[in-house]
């Protein structure tokens, strides 16, 4: 419950900077499409978590994930990790699009992406790498 309140507060803070129209957005909206995307991302998270922990993959400011330190991934696994990153970013793009669509405002996709980018970064575990305001990688 505490976590939920914290999330809502964080959301309000994050949305305060957005336009007053955008402030009407429901980021917690649920549709079968969103459920499907979230399910797919949740399944993938088990594979991504060790890569976040090792610093190989980090969270970008624009709501994506990126290969931060290629050297942390042995060559035989690099293609698989690249596909994992591509699939995750595809899902994230679909998620932002679906939330915008479900809110009946497809044009909010960019703002939703920005809000989520900050949200993932805020929620990242300590030790993970995230991009700061200037785009540089920092360890949380």
């Amino acid at each position, binding site marked *: 419950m505490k976590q939920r309140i914290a999330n809502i507060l964080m959301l309000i803070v994050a949305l305060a900077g957005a336009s007053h129209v955008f402030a009407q957005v429901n980021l917690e909206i649920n*549709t*079968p*499409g*969103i*459920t*499907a*995307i979230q399910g*797919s991302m949740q399944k993938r998270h088990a594979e991504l978590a060790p890569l976040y922990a090792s610093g190989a993959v980090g969270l970008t400011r624009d709501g994506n994930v990126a*290969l931060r*330190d*290629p*050297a942390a*991934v042995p*060559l*035989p696994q*690099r*293609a*698989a990790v*690249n*596909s994992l990153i*591509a*699939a995750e970013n*595809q*899902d994230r793009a*679909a998620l932002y699009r*679906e939330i915008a669509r479900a809110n009946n405002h497809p044009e909010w996709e960019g703002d939703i992406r920005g809000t989520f980018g900050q949200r993932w970064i805020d929620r990242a575990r300590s030790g993970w790498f995230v991009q700061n305001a200037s785009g540089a990688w920092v360890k949380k």
Partner: protein
Amino acid sequence: MAMLAAATLWWLPVSPGNTQQISLTLDDITGAGWGARGIRASFINGSVSIQITDVQAGGQSWKDVRLDCAALRLERARIACDDGLLAAPALGEKIPLAFIYVTDKRVLELSLKPARDETWHVNMAPGKRGNDLGLRIDGGRLQRAAPWLPPEWPKLNAGVVNGTLGYTGDGRISAKLIVSNAGFADTTGLHAGEKIGFTLDIATEPVADALRWNATLQWQAGESFWQPIYLKAANQHLSAEGRLDAKSLAVERGVLAYPGLGEVAFAGVYDLADRKILQATVDAPAIPLAALHEMVLKPFLAGTALAEIRADGRVSAALRLTGAGLHSVDVKLHNVSFDDKAQQRFALFEVNGSVPWRADAATQASVTVKGGEILKMPLGAFAVLLNMHGPRFELKQLRVPLLDGFIDMRDFVARAGGADGYWQFTGEVGGISMDKFTTALGLPVMHGTLAATLPMVRQVKSTLRVDGALSLKVFDGAVDVRNLVLLDMFGKAPRVQADVAMRNLDLGLVTRTYSFGNITGRIDASIAGLELVNWQPVKFDARLASSAGEYPRKISQAAVQNISALGGAGAAAAIQRSFLRFFEQFGYDRLGWRCKLQNSVCEMSGVEGEDKPQGYVLVKGGGIPAITVMGYNRQVSWQELLDRIKRVTQGNVKPIVE
């Protein structure tokens, strides 16, 4: 021939004592492919120091190069230095060197020893024509070659080279180099190699205005990743020969022998100025498909249904490229079989034939398939005759046997090529027994024959659209699906839109199939504005109503109970329980149900025109004994309704007779 400009020489006997000093300045000196500017040399009592402002060689330039020799030995026929030091800011280190120059024979021996285990030994001597040059490398650090590599290439970060390189005055070059523990990487991590070991032999020979060359490369150790392909050394052997002139590099004969895959022959011409391939051919006969898929194709198919397949058979391929692009592809399939090993969704067995594609001519591909499976349903043998002309593909007719019936595809047309790509066809499905079909798909067993007409089916980008009505016959009635659109079909959340109309379905067959209790009669149904996201309904307006016309209308006790259960708890109360106890079957006049789904809530009503203030009529009684079933919940959550239907059709609800 070196050119010398503006030289000054002083010889200054400096007193007091016997100190001797010679100073020399040269403005510049240039030769073929190299040059030096601002040369100042001084010789003081046997110690020589040369400073050069700028040295250029092979397109590279070094500033402030300095060569010191503390004890230069000037003998009658020799000049020698045993303890020289070469320094330049760009080198980042002082490199010890030693040389002997035999003046009468004009032979130079020069050794550079940047590290204890690294020597670059140069030998220069007059040959038949001009000077012959030899280089022997022992433990050479490969990174020293980095400045000569194009800046866009991945950076060399490790490696040792041993071997020899020879140049004769008549223009012949021969080299034999053994590279070990080499590594390279770019910052993105998309191109990298580690612990790479290979042997390279190169020989060139001048012919009129060009060089003839041949080279062999054998890859013995290490691994490399070049997005998306990962390769491991397995004694791959590459040999090639050709011509090199000022404009182009030509490979006249090339062979890549790849253990496990076979031999691939190639040739081509590369334009050095425009940095593009002018023409090329690749010929790969009878490559085992399993190895080809694992090593080459799989990384490109990642994320598609074809990434995790089991493949068998052989494929021959011949490609021809010109400056304008791909000119021809000839593929031959020899007993190719593949199946979806993880999910068993599809399989094709014993595929044979040839695909002779040309960019600028009409050709026909002919492929036969002995059999296959789709969603665990067997496919029979079929043959494909595909007409091809550049990016356009046409198939007049194709019949694929499925179970005991067939799928017909007619007038298939496809256009390959990114944004302009599309495909379309019309077709028919017929003669498939519903019981076999439903059993294969794990659905409740239905009876009858599956027949459907597929009107124009068209895919443009990621949208699949069916123009006209997709019609099929089930439960002795007809189903028409109109305005069917599948959006974002390859995405994570595909969306389907359609309008569905069903006419005159035999309720006896329907209720038996779904163990709903028995209802005799006929029903019409419509689902307007159906919208599915990820195959789950999110919006529709569905109506069920008894079909018009004369036919027996009976409803069993179990069906009454089940309909009541669907209507919610309140509905059952309306049933006259004493009636239920005495009769197995009841007569009815009309059935009706409407569900308007929006925002996960289904708004329900019953037989049209029969709405009562207290509820709606699901079954309007008629005949003897008659029964009327009412519904009271006008709004029900979609999930709750699904759970009710599931309980009912799984037989979890038993009729309660008091």
